[in-house]
């Protein structure tokens, strides 16, 4: 009786496991094994042959080779997409560089040398040559600004 119960239990467990496998198999329409290799669906020939026992090793090697080929194909695609990204980035950089050069070429650079000199040499703006460019009203304003200190002295 005990042996009979145990065998019944074992049979049920095996049946449950088989059902679970079936459920897992249904997840993949193209890959009934439900086996993945580094995220890639294995593209092996999954139809079982009649001489199952003798062809197990060959089938496994087939699966492995298929996985490798699939991996290589995916690698090529990834490589191409990265290369394309790099090429487009290079093109963009080149275009930006050309645009910048064009902008620099069209930009008029003005350096106020007089202003720089006046800042470096403050007395320079009081040379007759510099002052003669000013109107009398401007000169009057400058004179009036300087007068209080002269009067105090």
């Amino acid at each position, binding site marked *: 009786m005990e042996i009979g119960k145990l065998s019944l239990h074992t049979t049920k467990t095996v049946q449950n496991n088989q059902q679970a496998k079936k459920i897992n198999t249904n997840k993949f329409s193209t890959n009934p094994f439900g086996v993945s290799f580094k995220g890639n669906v294995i593209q092996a020939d999954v139809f079982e042959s009649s001489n199952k026992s003798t062809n197990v090793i060959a089938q496994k090697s087939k699966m492995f080779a298929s996985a490798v080929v699939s991996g290589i194909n995916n690698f090529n695609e990834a490589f191409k997409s990265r290369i394309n990204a790099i090429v487009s980035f290079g093109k963009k950089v080149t275009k930006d560089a050309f645009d910048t050069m064009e902008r620099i070429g069209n930009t008029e650079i003005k350096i106020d040398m007089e202003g720089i000199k006046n800042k470096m040499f*403050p*007395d320079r703006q*009081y*040379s*007759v040559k510099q*002052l*003669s460019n*000013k*109107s*009398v*009203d401007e*000169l*009057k304003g*400058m*004179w*009036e600004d*300087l*007068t209080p*200190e*002269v*009067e105090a*002295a």
Partner: protein
Amino acid sequence: MMNNKEKIKQIIRTLGEHKDSESAINLLTELGTNSPDDEIRELTAQTLIKKNTHDSLKVVLISKGKGINDLSARVAMASINELLALKDKNEAVKILDDTVKMHSDEEVRNTARSVRALMTFSS
């Protein structure tokens, strides 16, 4: 480093050569001849005389306390020297003659007479 007095002197020198002569003379008369500083008044008087126009000479010849009538001997002497250095003294002589004849202030008339005499002897 230039101090403020030197800067004002540069402005005065610029006004002496300025294209807008009339405005320059007005500014020199307004600020320069009324400056409390002897050096500024001296340079202003010399600049006005160098211009050698009726308006510029009138200020330093007939105005009391300015130019040849300045209370500072230094300013008065510098003005007289500048007058004597003029190549064309006609306008200055004419103004001095009118001042001697017609000016209301005796001190101004006397100064004008003395300077007129100096100019006669120096020419």
